[in-house]
């Protein structure tokens, strides 16, 4: 069939992404590959991700994790991603070491809640406690303290070029390698 000359018979690489206790900046940096996303989609497809309506991760090739782990839901989502993904990549400072949200780690989480839930005149109101709200952890944890991580991409966020290079290496089966110029925090 002539079709196979155009499109390789290989199944598409399936990529899942999630944002845990992150700011979405790493996802935005991924989208900053701009029009290259149209090329990417010729060889890859998305599983669960904030940009699709797939709410539940299924078996996939690559999982990109943004953000650290700050509550029970984060841990649950992360474990589900790990169970389904062949390769799990912690992307950005928050996933790697907790990042800015981990600035709360030196404080008692109960004290923080009490302080935030005051009205504009400083009068204490109740702290939200409905069962629909997930259990907050005492600290924000790096992703690798909860599951095994295969690769880390540093940066806050890593640049679009860094993410692009990494994904290409992974998809083509090369050892992912970032030049020094692509490896920096800020």
């Amino acid at each position, binding site marked *: 069939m002539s079709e196979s000359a155009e499109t390789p018979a290989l199944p598409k690489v399936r990529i899942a992404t999630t944002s845990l206790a992150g*700011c979405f900046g790493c996802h935005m940096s991924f989208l900053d590959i701009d029009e290259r996303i149209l090329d990417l989609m010729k060889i890859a497809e998305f599983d669960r991700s904030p*940009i699709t*309506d*797939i*709410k539940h991760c299924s078996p996939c090739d690559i999982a990109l994790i943004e953000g650290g782990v700050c509550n029970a*839901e*984060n841990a649950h989502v992360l474990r589900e991603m790990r169970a389904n993904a062949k390769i799990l990549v912690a992307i950005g400072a928050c996933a790697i070491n907790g990042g800015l949200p981990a600035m709360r780690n030196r*404080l008692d989480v109960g004290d923080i809640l009490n302080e935030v839930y005051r009205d504009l005149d400083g009068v204490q109101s109740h702290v*939200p406690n409905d069962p629909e709200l997930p259990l907050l952890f005492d600290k924000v944890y790096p992703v690798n303290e909860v599951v095994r991580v295969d690769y880390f991409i540093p940066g806050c966020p890593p640049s679009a070029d860094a993410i692009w290079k990494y994904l290409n290496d992974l998809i083509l089966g090369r050892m992912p390698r970032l030049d020094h110029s692509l490896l920096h925090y800020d």
Partner: protein
Amino acid sequence: MLNLETAQSPQKLRRVAIEPVSRVEGHGKVTILLDAENRIHQVRLHIVEFRGFEVFIQGRPYWEVPIAVQRLCGICPVSHLIAATKAMDVIAGFGPLTPTAEKLRRLLHYGQIVQSHALHFFHLSSPDLLFGFESEVAKRNIIGVAAAFPDLAKQGVLTRKFGQEIIAHIAGKRIHGTGVIPGGVNKPLSVADRDSMRAGIDQIVDWSKAAVGLVIQLHETNPDFYRTFGESRANMMGLVDRRGALDFYHGGLRARDADGGPIFDQIDYATYRNVLQEDVKNWSYMKFPHIKTLGADKGWYRVGPLARVQVCDVMPTPLAEAERRTFLNAGGGKPLHGALMYHWARMIEMLHSAELARELLDDPDIVGTDLMADKGPRREEGVGVIEAPRGTLFHHYRADDNDLVSYCNLIVSTTNNNQAMNESIRAVASRYLSGRELTEGLLNHIEVAIRAYDPCLSCATHALGQMPLEVDLIDADGTLVSRARKG
């Protein structure tokens, strides 16, 4: 009308959850309680993240805050950077900004609005509008749009890219840059960078105008539906300049009621506490602000594009103002409150921002080199407010004698819309879902209404959804009536 916020006897009802709400920035979840006849008794949008930024930032030096605070949100980091720096301009004791500094900040902000509005419309919301709310899940995303409407998807991607590049030229990089510092900006814009932006901006103005046209075209396919879907009659608030024109960067607070009548005007935003009050509900980490004089029940309001285009007297660029007039005509002289009208208003704002950016790129001041204001004595307290892409954003700080932050209060744009979003999804639930067999597509109606507000739930950072969403409707006898699955 039935108040769907809290059911009378929840223990007898069946719970349905949409978690996580997808194609929004950040994380939220919706819970619905139904009775044996599938009638809906309670609908809530929960924000389940909690970060405590206001507390852990205390003890840090004030000049560090604008950089740190961007990490509240990777989609609109520039908004937090600018709002926090405006507060720190005051605390550091600076006088009025130099013309070049203010114009560079404005250009940065307009670039941010272009990229954020383009991202929201094309990448996140357009699949619902182009394919239908109940279309196939696998296709209902930007990749599906790229396959079906390649030119449109490309325009969306490139419009966002242009906004991001404006940001990179001024702030050093696209996400979490610097550039804006207390007292001004830290680097001039080079003539070469200005010229490269100037060369591209006409195209962005044209594409933005076409995007407004697209929304109008969609609207015309079913005007009644577009006008009334997820309608919640809310008060409206936004910043306007002294003449009453919309100003994204600076101005006084103006609020109008649901019929367009005045509530307050030209309020100095540093005194926001005199006019606003915040409530806490135990089922959401996001607070519920309202206009103090009207009380919690009547005082809730909306912010963002739909409020802004109707609160101001004029948008001071010609193409956007003409589109705004067309928009107002669609309401026949009455304010519009349908959730989907946000998209129309948002694209008018994208056009306005592109026009404003073009004006600044033609202004010789933009490549000036006088970047820092004169400095006076340190002040104890500062408030910075802007119109962020999603609405009015408040940053309020105090710094002690050692320059360390001792108080911080933030009202992020999406928080202002908390009650209005909840009312919109209740309207959708009672109009389209109640008494019916729930399907994935029907549940998506709720998400369409939430998406319309472009909520930035990542302005606090948690994820929630871990379960496959499987909804069982079970009648009072325990028999399975229907089963719906999402994801």
